[in-house]
């Protein structure tokens, strides 16, 4: 809103005038603060195309104390010149004069004086010219007389460099309109990292802090063999159904499989062995060859453990991975066809279920989750298996936060791992804890091309062990 009276006055004056008004002059004329006029101009400008205004700045100059002295008594070089009699002056004597040091070098460079170094009693200074013009004094006197604009920019800056002239710095004492500290600042232009991937970085960090080495998961396409058979998941398992898994039309089948190992896997499935009854069915190589989009990163863990088993002697390892997996599932608010799986694996002699729980406790503590409990569960490739639940303060109930277990001997022994080596493992999705942490209800608001970039721009740092922001209060339906 234009603040009424001043704006109105301003408009009337503008109407009457030809070629615009100077706000400072107008203020003086009206006998009001310049700021009030400027305020009125700004308000009118804010209304749209009502007035045109341009910003004019005037600079005023004043002499420094030294400048005043020079205007009065002449420049140091002039004073030096004048103090030299026709028969010359000993340089040492000249230097003792108040203007001696500065004046001497300037007068020399102006070629007003010369030095005779061969004189008997030391160097002696003589005049070169009979008279000179003291330009510096003249210029300073101009400024003193209020005619600074007669000097060129170059001349002014030269005087400024010599600290003889200074811009009038009067804003130090001026009154200003107070700032509104309740208003927001201007956000800096910046790039942003995606919130889910910020969480991914933190999970990587946690694993690295715990001494876990990152496994290669650099293959979305996997054979059924590595994705299922190697994990002792039978060929009729529902997860291998077309309804759950994306199979490939091209390339439909894996080109190479480690056939020795494949034979051991086949035997374990169909006849048992390694202390197992097996599943007692006809295991088919064709089924194992079928390519698919990996349904879990456990396939990458299986490859890593197989590689480990080929290295003799066995060395204990701690592995982790975080990468995409794919499921041909029905999509809803919490399920997408692809998501990230986090997996941790420890292989060592004599690991126990208590060790698994201990590692899980440390892992989840780093996520800021301290209240844990464990529920017996079934996974095809781990036995014992346990689901990990944590108490959610916001939801006031126990929620599942991960799945874990000890890999079955039927999976490990065909790989060639020693019999007394146990492998404990756990997994969770990256999306789920992120959604809980940030109070996101629909996974599409977090992942994929339909996310609102503003959400990405606004997302805070990811500090998993910090207290979460209290969830927004529910709006009435």
């Amino acid at each position, binding site marked *: 809103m234009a603040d009424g009276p001043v704006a109105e006055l301003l408009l009337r004056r503008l109407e009457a005038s030809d070629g615009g008004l100077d706000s400072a002059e107008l203020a003086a004329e009206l006998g009001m603060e310049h700021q009030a006029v400027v305020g009125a101009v700004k308000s009118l400008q804010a209304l749209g195309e009502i007035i045109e205004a341009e910003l004019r700045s005037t600079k005023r100059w004043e002499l420094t104390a030294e400048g005043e002295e020079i205007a009065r008594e002449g420049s140091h070089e002039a004073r030096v010149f004048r103090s030299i009699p026709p028969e010359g002056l000993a340089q040492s004597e000249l230097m003792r004069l108040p203007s001696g040091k500065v004046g001497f070098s300037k007068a020399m460079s102006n070629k007003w004086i010369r030095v005779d170094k061969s004189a008997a009693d030391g160097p002696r200074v003589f005049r070169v010219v009979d008279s000179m013009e003291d330009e510096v004094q003249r210029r300073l006197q101009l400024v003193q007389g209020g005619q600074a604009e007669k000097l060129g920019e170059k001349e002014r800056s030269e005087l400024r460099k010599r600290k003889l002239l200074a811009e009038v710095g009067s804003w130090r004492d001026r009154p200003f309109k107070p700032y509104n500290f309740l208003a927001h600042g201007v956000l800096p232009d910046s*790039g942003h990292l995606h919130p889910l991937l910020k969480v991914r*970085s933190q999970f990587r960090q946690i694993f690295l802090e715990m001494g876990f*080495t990152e496994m290669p998961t650099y293959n979305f396409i996997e054979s059924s063999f590595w994705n299922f058979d190697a994990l002792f998941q039978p060929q009729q398992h529902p997860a291998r159904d077309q309804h759950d898994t*994306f199979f490939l039309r091209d390339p439909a089948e*894996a080109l190479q499989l480690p056939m020795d190992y494949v034979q051991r896997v086949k035997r374990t499935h169909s006849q048992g062995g390694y202390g197992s009854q097996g599943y007692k069915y006809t295991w088919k190589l064709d089924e194992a060859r079928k390519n698919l989009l990996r349904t879990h990163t456990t396939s990458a863990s299986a490859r890593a453990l197989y590689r480990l088993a080929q290295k003799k002697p066995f060395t204990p390892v701690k592995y982790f991975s975080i990468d995409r997996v794919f499921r041909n599932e029905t999509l809803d608010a919490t399920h997408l066809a692809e998501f990230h799986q986090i997996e941790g694996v420890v292989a060592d002699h004599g690991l126990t279920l208590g060790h698994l729980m201990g590692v899980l406790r440390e892992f989840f503590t780093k996520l800021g989750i301290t209240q844990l409990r464990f529920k*017996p569960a079934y996974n095809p490739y781990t036995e014992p298996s346990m689901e990990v639940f944590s108490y959610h303060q916001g939801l006031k109930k126990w929620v599942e936060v991960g799945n874990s277990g000890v890999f079955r001997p039927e999976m490990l022994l065909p790989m060639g791992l020693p019999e007394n080596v146990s492998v404990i493992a756990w997994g969770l999705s990256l999306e789920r804890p992120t959604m809980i942490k940030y109070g996101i209800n629909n996974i599409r608001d977090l992942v994929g091309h339909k996310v609102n970039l503003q959400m990405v721009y606004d997302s805070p740092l990811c500090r998993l062990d910090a207290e979460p922001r209290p969830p927004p209060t529910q709006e009435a339906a």
Partner: protein
Amino acid sequence: MPTVSVKRDLLFQALGRTYTDEEFDELCFEFGLELDEITSEKEIISKEQGNVKAAGASDVVLYKIDVPANRYDLLCLEGLVRGLQVFKERIKAPVYKRVMPDGKIQKLIITEETAKIRPFAVAAVLRNIKFTKDRYDSFIELQEKLHQNICRKRALVAIGTHDLDTLSGPFTYTAKRPSDIKFKPLNKTKEYTACELMNIYKTDNHLKHYLHIIENKPLYPVIYDSNGVVLSMPPIINGDHSRITVNTRNIFIECTGTDFTKAKIVLDIIVTMFSEYCENQFTVEAAEVVFPNGKSSTFPELAYRKEMVRADLINKKVGIRETPENLAKLLTRMYLKSEVIGDGNQIEIEIPPTRADIIHACDIVEDAAIAYGYNNIQMTLPKTYTIANQFPLNKLTELLRYDMAAAGFTEVLTFALCSQEDIADKLGLDISATKAVHISNPKTAEFQVARTTLLPGLLKTIAANRKMPLPLKLFEISDIVIKDSNTDVGAKNYRHLCAVYYNKNPGFEIIHGLLDRIMQLLDVPPGEDKGGYVIKASEGPAFFPGRCAEIFARGQSVGKLGVLHPDVITKFELTMPCSSLEINIGPFL
């Protein structure tokens, strides 16, 4: 995970006590079950079809309980109660017995025609059973649960249960041409040929899912009694003649299938669960199955197997220190009757026919741990000493992500799967030129291929964010997939970095500047020399003519940058000019 729905009051009555919902939830948790939902028939109908439809429905409280997928013995009220009562040591696990009949044994003769379609069959008889409405419902429901789970939607095994008193053996399991099979199926009033039935069931919401199992086969499986009465046409439908009711006293059960092991397990589960209601409790009458080769076997197997596990192995695997006697007691609570034998450290465990899930000592170890209580186990840290390493490509990715954001670009996360159109048509390419991997069973076009470029995802992100202030500067560093016959699976991931600049002007210089910055970050100097990078005029259908360059670094082509072709912009539903950059970062490791 299968969910079993049981009436709460019936459950408590069978358990001999009541629980609060919280107490029962706690018991489930401890035992490895999950009380998923507390509801009623009325609530379910009202939720699915509205209050009006639900008006007359029962409001008896139902517990929906999630059961582990390998515990077929817990898929009905009878099994759940038995499992929990044994767990709580309120009853001893019953012993299931197979007995020979007083009279002639029921015979099921398999003919060789079945070999090509559904070669296996097993059978058994439940004598003098006493159903009530609830027991009968549970019997039907258990068959449905088994069909959905272990039977893999009837593909592996199909169950038929019949009123034996309406039939006369021996029975013949054979396969015939569909046109030669004619009978009155369950819930129909007249006879149909198999061909007609397959047509009728195409619109049956329940049965249509099973038709594919036999649909295109020349012969259909069928079971007759000695009078030519059709018992069933597995795995589709039973005959109406031998249908069972609440009043049925003698039941003939047949399981046919393609997996012999599973057929035997399914038969064992049904008879162990429901022999509870027979006059001679937990006793099952054997039936003889004659195979095409003339050999015969009697079923159900009801096999009890003995396993030997050392107590210290259980303690070592779980991380506890229990006496062998205590461990035996724990296992007995899990329906695995156990006793200490030999040197006092050896535990002999009897695996009952209901526990087909126990196939290795590790399964026994788990049950000991469950009975001990997972949450009673002392947590300890393993002493495994290791030095952590990052996967080099991921390490580089992480470093680059931060500096891309520092360069003013915003990170997006898009899907690895997309439509053929996204990676081909919309970019002016033929799909065959992309070397993309193709998915055989996508439910929608969004999942036809794995992406071969990150660009479509970025452009789709812009399209969904057209209301955001310009310019939009986006990037993504992630994997794409290309067919590659040099790898074991025939495809390979590449880690790409893609960035786009979307504004009122094309901003080639911005994207070009970003490339220069990336190369600076990767310590690749400008210039043609081997170690350096250079861009050379190029072309591509996605780019505006004359506004495309190929990027060469360290002596190889690593990608392209340029101003996108207006056709590409339009096809991605954008309206402004856009420049993009996409490189493979693998060569910079």
